[in-house]
């Protein structure tokens, strides 16, 4: 289905001809320029800072400070409100510290979603690059597979896998990677097709470089920005879906804490203590907002699409 490889002559001709006149020098004051630069830096570093903070909270904090157990609580200290001594976010109905549930649940959320996205990048990018680079029937077959994966309700698949194989972290990761594979695959294919007619690709082919070498040395480095930005959005989506699976009882196996299962448990006392639902939801929201904003900022900086 894809367009045939361009003739080297036309590609060369299009590089030699100057297509568009150079843009006019913009009339902009140095002050305006400085504030624009500052804005751009802030858009990148504020979400990045939040993410670093969340990661440090989840992974470093428990190494430095002794946290109460995230699974066992003291029933005498049950349902304590936030800011009580020893439990600064309070305790849940059976006396388990909420802050340490947030910390350990956050670890699970980050580990699972990053692992699932990495699998998605490994498999999805391979499929996408191969489809985009070789074109022809290879592209037709691989694109149909991606289409079916996209049209297939991935939540059904994830639920079926967790339900059938029993809840475990590894199954959860594989189930969630079905979200990221077609997602990354489509972007990788699109970016590769755009690259195919780039002058340096023609040059590499004319120099007699082998196909696989072109993919590894020329295609992959050029599509990495697109894949990184889309993966950041992907991690955000996967964290939300992971929470949904926890929420439905098919995620991180109990008694390990997770944000989704905290929301599900808080549901039972929604009227009396809405904070059980609100606290994990807030952490979830901040994390995903930071991921999305970082993805936007990097896309702007790298000029992806």
């Amino acid at each position, binding site marked *: 289905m894809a367009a045939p490889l361009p003739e080297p002559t036309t590609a060369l001709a299009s590089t030699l001809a100057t297509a568009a006149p150079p843009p006019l020098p913009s009339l902009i004051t140095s002050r305006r320029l400085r504030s624009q630069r500052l804005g751009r830096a802030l858009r990148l570093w504020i979400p990045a800072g939040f993410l670093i903070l969340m990661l440090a909270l989840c992974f470093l904090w428990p190494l430095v400070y002794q946290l109460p157990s995230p699974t066992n609580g003291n029933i005498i200290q049950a349902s304590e409100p936030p800011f009580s001594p020893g439990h600064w976010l309070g305790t849940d109905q059976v006396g388990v510290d909420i802050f340490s549930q947030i910390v350990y649940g956050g670890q699970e959320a980050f580990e699972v979603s990053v692992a699932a996205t990495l699998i998605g990048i490994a498999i999805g990018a391979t499929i996408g690059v191969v489809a985009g680079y070789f074109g022809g029937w290879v592209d037709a077959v691989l694109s*149909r597979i991606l*289409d*079916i994966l*996209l*049209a*297939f*309700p*991935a*939540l*059904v*698949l994830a*639920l*079926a*896998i967790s*339900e*059938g*194989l029993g809840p475990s972290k590894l199954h959860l990761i594989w189930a969630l990677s079905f979200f990221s594979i077609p997602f990354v695959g489509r972007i990788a294919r699109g970016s590769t097709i755009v690259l195919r007619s780039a002058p340096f690709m023609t040059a590499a082919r004319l120099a007699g470089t082998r196909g696989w070498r072109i993919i590894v040395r020329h295609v992959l480095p050029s599509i990495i920005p697109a894949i990184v930005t889309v993966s950041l959005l992907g991690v*955000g989506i996967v964290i*939300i*879906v992971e*929470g*949904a699976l926890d*929420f*439905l009882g098919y995620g991180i196996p109990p008694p390990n804490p997770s944000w*989704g299962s905290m*929301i599900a448990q*808080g*549901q039972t006392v*929604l*009227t009396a203590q*809405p904070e059980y*639902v*609100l606290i*994990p*939801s807030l952490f*979830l*929201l901040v994390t*995903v*907002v930071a*991921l*999305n*904003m970082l993805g936007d900022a990097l896309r702007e900086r790298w000029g992806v699409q």
Partner: protein
Amino acid sequence: MALVQQIQLQGGPGARDRARRAAGSPALRMVGRRLLAAIPVLFGVTLLTYAVFSALPNDTAQAVLGLRASPAQVAALNHTLGLDQPFWVRYGRWLGGVLHGNLGTSLEGQSVNSELATHLPVTLELLAYALVVSLLLAIIVAALAARRPNGIIDRLSLVVSMLGLSAAPYAFAFLLIIVFAVKLGWFPVVSGSLGSSPASWFKALTLPAASIGFPLFAVYTRILRADMVEQMQREDYIVTAKAKGVAPWRVLIKHALRNSMFTLITVVGLNLGTLVGAVAIIETVFSVPGIGNDLLTGISNHDVPLVEGIVLVFALITVLGNLLADLLYAVLDPRIRYGSSTS
């Protein structure tokens, strides 16, 4: 071709002529071609569902009969359900039934057709409610935002849509429940029965529709706003319209918005498929008696016929949604004529 036959069957003078003209219409041919192209995708999706459920360890009969059932009883039930046969035989039998309009019998003994007939309308109403409201709001907000890029409304819309993009639908649903159902008491917490009057329907479905619609509103607003801002800055016809003195609002609505609708329609069509997950979860949270709720019970019961039926319906909705989007392009842009040699 079926259409041709159908029209021919109506008989009467000139019917054959009309049929030929209908079959020759490029738009109809496009619809036919797209429906044909959808068949492999529908086939792949249902086959994949069957394959996943067959590959998983299967103890359906044991689960139905309980732990005390003897191996002989389990084997007997497996035989009646056809579960002792290889997977392609079962899939083939199911597919044969589907082609005759029969989606099979669920494990609870009900026909999947009747299950869908009672629960599908609720889900469709919920989806339509969420889609229409989020689209209307997105168009209004995006137009207001694009009128003055970087103005107050624009920044506010960016913040709200970023929140909508990042909020987990289930968490947002609980926030709505806490505020509007528990504190203010405007809407019921549980939408189990829809009632018969429009008022009770509205009351029961508003919070679920808002939970599904808010992320959609965020996506639509972001895309439409970005597209409209770009149009207003780049396109020649905008400059022309402004130069000949068209009022700013008119330029925005009649020129920029109309052309930005293409992007929006594409996104709406593509997004339909991803709604399954949100619908299933939100229907569970609010106990809405729709097929999303059925889907989750079906999965936890290993009820393959029920799950297959629902997956097929959702895949069909996606395919038809994309087709509708393509047809709407032609309505919006008279230059697009499907099937003609110039397009």
